[in-house]
């Protein structure tokens, strides 16, 4: 069901709402796209108003599996996964920056693949395994990738950082020894306004055990 990395990105069907509109993130984005497409299936099935199985518009019970824990919440079906995480579960590591799939600040892993949480309804994440930045490393600990981000100063204001860490984690899970170009491609759906990209490249390559020239980015 999941589309593997590197394959041609699937194009969207039409007639979808803005919420469902999908932005890929380069090579890694293929996986992102596939994750979202799969997640949408139940909604399309019950798309006709009042059809059996239609959710809402009032609040509904939604059970999610987040960072290995079952979480239950009552929300309107229109609530995005990002707003559910941030406003209802106080998991505020994923950031709301553009709210339309342009910046990557809200990236989470859905069954191990990076997705933009602002582009996915929470109800469509039912039955999937969601990993947020808070779940990347055990509580109180740092993942080697996070250690590399800190050591290499791959963050300034830090607002984009959770998204970059999540996407980098997904990259290294699939491609443990990426080239610089693969790192650029995997992170091209993310924006850092402070301009920390060179150090992010260094951190990801360092975490992958690849040689990095300090101060040099190519």
């Amino acid at each position, binding site marked *: 069901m999941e589309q593997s990395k590197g394959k041609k990105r699937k194009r969207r069907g039409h007639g979808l709402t803005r919420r469902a509109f999908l*932005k890929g993130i380069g090579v890694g984005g293929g996986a992102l796209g596939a994750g979202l497409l799969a997640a949408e299936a139940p909604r399309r099935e019950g798309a006709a108003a009042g059809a059996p199985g239609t959710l809402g518009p009032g609040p509904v019970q939604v059970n999610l599996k987040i960072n290995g824990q079952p979480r239950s919440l009552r929300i*309107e079906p*229109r*609530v995005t996964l990002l*707003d559910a995480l*941030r*406003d209802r579960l106080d*998991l*505020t*590591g*994923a*950031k*709301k*920056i*553009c*709210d*339309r799939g*342009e*910046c990557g600040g809200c990236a989470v892993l859905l069954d191990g693949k990076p997705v933009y949480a602002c582009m996915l309804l929470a109800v469509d994440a039912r039955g999937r395994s969601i990993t*947020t*930045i*808070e779940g*990347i*490393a055990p509580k109180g600990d*740092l993942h080697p990738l*996070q250690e590399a*981000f*800190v*050591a290499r*100063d791959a*963050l*300034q*204001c*830090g*607002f*984009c*950082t*959770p998204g970059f*860490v999540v996407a980098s984690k997904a990259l290294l899970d699939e491609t443990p020894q990426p080239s610089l170009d693969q*790192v*650029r*491609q995997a*992170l*091209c759906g*993310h*924006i*850092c*306004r*402070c*301009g*920390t*990209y*060179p*150090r*992010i*490249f260094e951190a990801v390559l360092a975490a992958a055990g690849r040689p990095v020239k300090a*101060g*040099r*980015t*190519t």
Partner: protein
Amino acid sequence: MAETRKVRIGYGARLEEVEVQVPDGEPAIWDAATRLDVVGTAVPRLDGPAKVTGRAKYTYDVTLPGMLFGKILRSPHPHARIVTIDTSKAARLAGVKAVITFETPEFFAAVESEDSGRPVDEAAKAEPPAGKRRVLFAGEEVAAVAATTQEIAEDALHLIEVKYEPLPHVVDLDEGRKPGAPRVFPQHDNTLKAEVREQGDVEAGFKQADQVVEGTYRTPVALHNALEPHGAVARWEGKTLTVWASTQGVFGFRDDLAKFFKIPPADVRVITEYLGGGFGAKFGAGVVGATAALLARRAQAPVKLMLDRHEENLATGNRPSSVQWIKVGAKRDGTLTAIHLKSYGSGGIAGGAGVSGPIWMTYACPNLRSEEQDVLLNTGFAMPFRAPGFPQGSFALESALDELADRLGLDPLDLRRKNYIERPAKPLMEQYALAAKAIGWERRQAPPAQGAARASGKPLRGLGMGTAVWPVYGGPPTEATVKIHTDGAVECICGTQDIGTGTRTAMAIVTAEVLGLKPEQVRVTLGDTGTGMYSPASGGSVTLNSILPAVRAAAEGARQKYLKSVAPALGAKPEDLDLHGGRVVAKDGGKSLAFAQGASRLKTAVIAAQASRAENYKDRAAELVGAQFAEVEVDPETGRVRVLKVTAAHECGRVINRLAAESQVNGGVIMGLSYALLERRVIDSPTGNVLNANLEDYKVAGTLEMPEIVPILVEVYDPANSIGVKGLGEPPVVPTAAAIANAVSNALGVRMTELPLTPDRILAALAGTKEA
């Protein structure tokens, strides 16, 4: 009240001793002769772990019990009179707890402060009350709601019925200058009086010149787009107000709210523990801060009001556009004889569009004249944007100088060196040499003859450069406190905010240096007016040079108290003891104690020293300089520019944290690259609406645009304070666009005169046609 001290100033091997007048009580000045253990090393940020794990709580992440969500309704019209506003349906919607309308211009006047951008609209205030309020740009605030969820707040906005009477508008810079153009303010023309500044006699200067170049350069309106939007979480408890705010100036934000609600500043507490960028757009409480607090008061519940990305791009500030006509004259050997600049530009309904800073500060030239005009338009207002005016001015000046060099057959770098302004401890010549070497400047060739580049069809390479200059600001008042607890815990407290530059870590570094500890042993509190430790807003490259001298003075005070308490235990006098390597040691090499052990002998539970920052020392550290070189490759088929490499030599006085300083240089270069190649706000003239108010269509540089960047820091000793730190935020963004544009012009053999350097413009330049 002052004493004279000798300090060693300069850089590298170029050192000299000078006398400085310093205020009484200053600690030993850290000059070129001082060796430090922690300051200047590469220290990973103390808040790094919190940021990489998502634990860091920004304003946007604050949640309070019973908190409501605020939303602002904005005008879709660029200029209109509000005839009626009916909020009754919105107010009846289940979950809506407060609705306010901004029916009077006085609201905006009341939230205005000197630094929050929006104009104090005297003209609008003077309008008769019966005239109803005018909205002056698409995106201006009309009403606001607070509701139990974000979704309900959005629904409520749709239920507010506003009847507008559209008025004629103008959003285009050149249209706005025409006689008969719709006026933004009825009382006066859109084009304001020119600011004229002159030195020498430019006409005489041009007569002395052997070569004169002139050209007109254009730059777009750019948008800050800090990733955390503007916003605040406001909570009232009785008559006191606590606000978590996304601001680069907690004290300014506090004072604005105190003024707005007519309460003492002490009754307002503003907290910014983590800040998702600002770049100049987040000074003052502004409408957002005042609205959050007003909604909270009306609803009698805490309110979170964060703008969305669309709003960020409409109504939170911009870097004004510019049209610059510049004329430069020089002798055959490159000696400048005159520079004349005439410019106009618009930040919208308010905000200075001046760009002349670089011509007045960068190069030696006896005859200078600048004439600058602001043009008012029906668009969102300007806010300072990282080195306000300088990236624009630098683009025109450096482009003209490159053209001059080409005409004179001189190396562009030699032309800059020829017109160097000599100052003590100025490292620019060194920076030119280092950055030129790192890029391989000797490979630069004269630009191809017109038409030749296009004919070849091959990728075109070019090299270009520019000089950075920025005045050193910063100074008192700033206060800090350092505390030592009996368990050895050390705290450093200052109200200042960390905009993302590493202020928190820098405070720990200086405290650790004075107390002989490691930075991670210092607990830093910042971003809180409740500390009472005043500091200025973070803008203009002032944060570290304002706060660190106060931090050091406080740490020195705590050190003295600590040594006095511990001395008896070591059988020594306080002045014979030193703090080093986490221990208190006798200078004669005798006894020593671990720092915490020593602290356990304190007679009080805590010792605290509060200190204020002294005045700057006279005649030291007037400016920051830097040099950047860029290499580009242009595809003549597609018009695409790829920046291959940028070398950026900068200074910040004494380096505090090498890692953070280099990151800041990288960041400036990247922001400058983005401005050079991608960024521009696009407004539709007929509707007056911003067409690219998002991060998809308003392009900012991403991973694929990254060149190799080589940050080079030249440490300079020229102390105007006890630490010798000068600042770093602005200079790295100043010359990047100019250096890239010069590299592109060098590659094409055609002078590029308009930013951004988009493929259509490159192709038009290669084809020798006028741009569309």
